[in-house]
């Protein structure tokens, strides 16, 4: 097994003793099959136990290890070191989020936004448990499946320049999840969600840069979801104004 010495420049920030972040370099003997997260674990275990970062599954499922690697938002457990350009590897916390400590960012803003779009099935009428589950055909599942693959890793928010410039923007993942529930045959909550998403801070803040979809590790394509919602919201507007009687 071949080993390479690689320098990692990691953005550190200690909110108790520092006023701003600084880079700290670590030289790590990396194995061929390592991902960036392995190098971080090596640093924490053998070089510097004070380094803070989030991770859990090490298999691109939990969505907690997102960070900027050489300026690009990536899951550190999916970023193979051998695939990165030779030389120093720069690791920073996800852009556009406040830094809590080292590579850990503050997620409160996203959590509030996620909650605001009601990301759960809102049935027309609650059925008693005895009536059994809400059934769905494979075709109905297919309508929203792609948008249900989101792991809340927030790479898309770190990639989105609109979110960086206008933090009120609901943002890619929360909007993709809105779309996911709107498209669900068991759900009748679209109108409630429209109050939040068919607004300036909702879909209309998006100018289709498309960066979110390019960085998404799960091929959710939030940008596509947002454009589809823009079209549907525009159709709503026309229907409402041209055929007011249709509004129930």
């Amino acid at each position, binding site marked *: 097994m071949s080993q390479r010495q690689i320098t990692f420049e990691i953005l550190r*920030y200690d*909110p*108790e003793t520092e006023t*701003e*972040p600084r880079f700290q370099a670590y030289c790590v003997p990396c194995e061929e099959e390592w991902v960036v997260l392995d190098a971080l674990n090596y640093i924490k275990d053998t070089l510097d136990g004070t380094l803070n970062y989030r991770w859990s599954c090490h298999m691109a499922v939990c969505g907690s290890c997102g960070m900027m690697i050489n*300026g*690009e938002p990536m899951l550190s457990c999916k970023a193979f070191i051998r695939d990165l350009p030779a030389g120093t590897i720069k690791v920073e916390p996800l*852009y*556009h989020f*406040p*830094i*809590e400590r080292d590579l850990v960012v*503050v997620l409160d803003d996203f959590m509030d936004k996620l909650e605001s779009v009601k990301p759960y099935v809102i049935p027309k009428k609650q059925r008693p448990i005895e009536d059994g589950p809400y059934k769905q055909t*494979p*075709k109905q599942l*297919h309508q929203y499946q792609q948008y249900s693959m989101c792991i809340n890793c927030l790479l898309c928010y770190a*990639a989105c*320049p609109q979110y*960086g*410039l206008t933090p009120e923007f609901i943002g890619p993942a929360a909007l993709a999840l809105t779309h996911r529930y709107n498209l669900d045959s068991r759900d009748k909550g679209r109108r409630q969600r429209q109050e939040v998403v068919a607004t300036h801070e909702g879909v209309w803040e998006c*100018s*289709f*840069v*498309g*960066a979110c*979809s*390019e960085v998404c590790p799960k091929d959710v*394509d939030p*940008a*596509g979801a947002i*454009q*589809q919602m*823009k*079209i549907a919201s525009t159709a709503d507007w026309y229907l409402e104004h041209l055929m007011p009687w249709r509004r129930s």
Partner: protein
Amino acid sequence: MSRNPYVREVPRTTWYMRNNRYIRYMLREVSCVFIGLYAASLTVGLVRLAQGDNEWTHYLNGISSPTGILFSLLAFGFACYHSITWFNVTPRAMRIPKGDGFVPGPAIVSAHYIIWAVVSLVFLLMMGVL
């Protein structure tokens, strides 16, 4: 333990220099300036045509000068860039149901190119170029 989150400001005027993705996006946005200028030049052409022979010849000389041709080429380049990048993303904005799934993306993109070609042909025929 005290909390004191550190906020990194996004540079307001130079944010798009951060990566190629943003630069490509800005190029697409800027393309509208050239397309707008081209449309303005066409409108001026119409006015000149209405003003008479002399003005019209003057206008034609203007647009066929090296600067005029350079501008047309530039506007054409930007128009193509805008259309191509736009066509390529259309399948993501419109999902057309078909059977259990959706019409495949390449079919939607191709349809856009075919419509583009047909409309261009009709215009060229109407203008007597073909």
